[in-house]
C-alpha cells in the first residue's frame, strides 16, 4: 500500500525535471549549435512531460487499486484468512 502516493510524488518530480530541462540551455547561446541543443532539450522536455502524464495515470490507477483492495480486505476480514 502507499504506491499511489509514491507514484504521485514521482509524477511531481518528473514535472519539475521537465521544466528544468526546458530552461537548462543558456538562452543567450545563439547560432546553429545552440539551436540544435535547444531542439534536443525541447524534445527531451516533451518526452519527460509524456512520462509525467503516464506517472499521473499510474498514480490514479494505483489509487483506484488501493481503494478497491481496501474494500476487498474489508469484505474478506470477516471470513477465512486470505493471503492478501
Amino acid at each position, binding site marked *: *500500500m*502507499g*504506491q499511489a502516493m*509514491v*507514484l504521485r*510524488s*514521482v509524477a511531481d*518530480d*518528473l514535472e519539475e*525535471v521537465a521544466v*528544468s*530541462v526546458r530552461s*537548462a*540551455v*543558456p538562452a*543567450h*547561446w*545563439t*547560432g*546553429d*549549435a*545552440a539551436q*540544435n*541543443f535547444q531542439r*534536443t*532539450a525541447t524534445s*527531451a522536455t516533451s*518526452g*519527460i512531460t*509524456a*512520462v509525467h502524464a*503516464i*506517472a499521473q*495515470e*499510474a498514480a490514479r*490507477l*494505483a489509487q*483506484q*487499486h488501493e481503494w*478497491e*483492495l481496501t474494500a*476487498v480486505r474489508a469484505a474478506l476480514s470477516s471470513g477465512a484468512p486470505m493471503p*492478501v
Partner: protein
Amino acid sequence: MSGPVGPVIPDWSPGPSSESVAAANAANELTVYGGGIGSTVDIEVSTEDIRACASQISALASRLRHAGSRARVCAYGLSSTAHLTSFGALSLDRAWDVVHSADSRAASLDDLAERLQVAAQGYEDSEDAAAAVTWRIFRAPFVFPFFPLVHIQFAAALAAADAVAHGQEPWAFTREGTGMFLREYIYALTGMDDGVENIAALVAAGVLPYNSNRATIRSIVPNAMAGGAEQITDTEGLVNAIGALYPEAGNVPPGSFRIDRMVAADGQVSGTVIIPGTQDDIVGFNPNNWASNPGAMVGGMTAVANGVIAGVIASGFKPGDTINLAGHSQGAMVSVVVANALVDAGYKVPGVLSVGGPIGLISAPAATEVLAVEHREDPVPGADDAPPPVSENLTWVDRPLSESTDPLAMSVHDPTGSHGVDMYVNTAALVDASDNDAIQDALAAWDAQFDPDAEVTTFYYQATRDF
C-alpha cells in the same frame, strides 16, 4: 634447400581501399578545427556556461533515473496484489511504463549532457588553437620610443629562427612569425599594442586617393588553350580554377574573375564566384593590386569586391539565389566581404572557401559556412595578426608543411611555395579526401555547386579600376 615448400597461395585478402588510404593521409597532414564548435567570439556564451548546463542536465538525468527507481519499487509492490482488483493489472502496467520511459529519457539526457561537454571542449580547443596563432613576445621596458630598432631586430630574429625551425628560409616568416613581427614593428614605432588592424585601416584610407574603390567590368573570353574552364566538382577543382585566373597562367588578363552558374536537374539555380589574389603593383588599373589588400583585410568594399558584385548581377543572379565564393589570398578576403554584401542584398551564401587568406579581421555572415585552408608556413594568413574568426560556422584547416611527408610539401622553403596555388591545390586534394566531420559539414554547403550533373555556364569578367 631453402624457401617455401608446397604451393604458394596468393593472398587474396583485400587491402585498404584507395579512399581510406587518402582519408588516413589527410588525417595525418591536416589539423582541423570547427564544425559546430561555436565560440565566445560571436555567440556570447562561455564554455563555463555550457559545462554548467551539461552538469545540470546530467543531474536532471540522475533525478529522472531516481524517479524511475521509485516507480520500480511501486511496480514490485503493486505486482503482489495486482491480481486482486480490477485496476491492479492496469496500474502495474502503467507503473512499469513509467520505469522504462524514465530510464530511456534519462539516457537521452545523459547523451545531451555528453554532447554539451564535447561542444564545450570543441570551443576550448578551437579558441586555444586560434589564440596560439597570435604569437606574443617579451617587450623590454621603454622599447617605445627609445629602442625601436633593437626591438624590431629582436622580433625579426625570433621570426627568422621560427622560420628556420619550420624548414623555411630565414626571411620567409611563418604565419605566426609574420603576425608577431608586424605587430611588434608597429608597436616599436608607434607604441600601439595591437596595431595591425588600425594601420591597415589607415593605409587603406591613405591609398584611396590613388586607387579608387570603383570598378568597371567587361565580359571576356578566356584563352581556351590555357585550360582552367573545367567543371568544378570538388575543392581541388576550385583551387585549380583560382590558379587559372592569375595572369601568369596565360588564361585570362589581369583583374579577372570567374562566375559559374549552375542549373540542377530540378531547375534550382546556384552559382560560384572564383576570385584570385594580389597581382601587379601598388597603383594601377588592376583592382587586384597591392593597394586593395589593406582595405580588404579590414572588411572594406574594395574595387575587386565592387567588380565581383557587378559580375554577379551581370551573370543573371537575383536576390534569393544561392551563390558561394572561393578566393585565394586577397581573393579570400574579398570572398568574405562580398558574402556579407550579397547576404545584405538578399542572396543566400551557404559557403565560402578561403585559401591562404588573412580573414581574421572580417566576420562572415552567420549562415555562411566558411572553410579556411591555411599552411602554417604561409606568411599571408598571418598578415592580419589575428586568429581565424573562430565561430561555429568556420572550419579551419591548418596544414603544417614542415611536418608533411609529401615530397612537394617538403620542398617548400619560401612563400612562393607555401602561399602558392600549386601547394594549395595539393592541400585541397587532402581536404576532399578527408573524412573529418567538420570538413564534411563545411563541404556540404557546396553540394549544389559540386553537382556533376548540373548544367554549368561559365562567365569570365575582367575588372578595371575606375579613376
